[in-house]
């Protein structure tokens, strides 16, 4: 079975600073996909960034980037130049191919950006 662990239930960061959210996972698969989703207060989850395991290059989306360490089964999210709108719950998720695209989620990290 796949498991996803987010060891930081809560984090805070000063506006304009950089913060890294950690995520580790356990799988015996070689090919899979990793995602970070963001859930602002009282809003739906939206995709932040996505990584394909067979790609060595770390994904980036504007201020968001990942540090994907396949051997260590680690997938951390770095948010640069934090903004107040980044305040949200962040979920790390694992997807195994050929399983109906079902996600395995971590428990989430609640990030607060402090003005």
């Amino acid at each position, binding site marked *: 079975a796949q498991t996803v662990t987010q060891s930081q239930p809560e984090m805070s960061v000063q506006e304009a600073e950089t913060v890294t959210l950690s995520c580790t996972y356990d799988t015996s698969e070689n090919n899979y996909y990793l*995602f970070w989703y963001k859930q602002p207060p009282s809003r*739906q989850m*939206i995709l932040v960034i996505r990584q394909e395991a067979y790609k060595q290059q770390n994904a980036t989306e504007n201020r968001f980037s990942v540090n994907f360490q396949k051997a260590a089964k680690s997938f951390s999210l770095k948010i640069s130049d934090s903004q107040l709108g980044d305040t949200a719950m962040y979920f790390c998720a694992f997807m195994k191919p050929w399983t*109906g*695209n*079902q*996600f*395995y*989620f971590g*428990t989430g990290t609640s990030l607060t950006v402090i003005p």
Partner: protein
Amino acid sequence: EPEVTQTPSHQVTQMGQEVILRCVPISNHLYFYWYRQILGQKVEFLVSFYNNEISEKSEIFDDQFSVERPDGSNFTLKIRSTKLEDSAMYFCASSEDGREGCEQYFGPGTRLTVT
């Protein structure tokens, strides 16, 4: 931008009653999903649905659960005889297609409280 919508936002029901949770996926999407999150726990996959059939289901999705796409727009989750442990947030999601690693778009959730 198109969004997944869910109704109601909060449903309270008595143990043993049937409930139907409703979702309207994004209009051109073909794959639909239900997840649930018990308070304080991980978001868990329930079922995926394509072409009017279940593609995958988890062990949580037992005979008490069913899904249906009764018309061209709605996607419903029915719980036949609710139990206290069914109390959770239920999220609907949809994806454009079933490609490996395809992004899923989530609704805001329905909070189900079983008393």
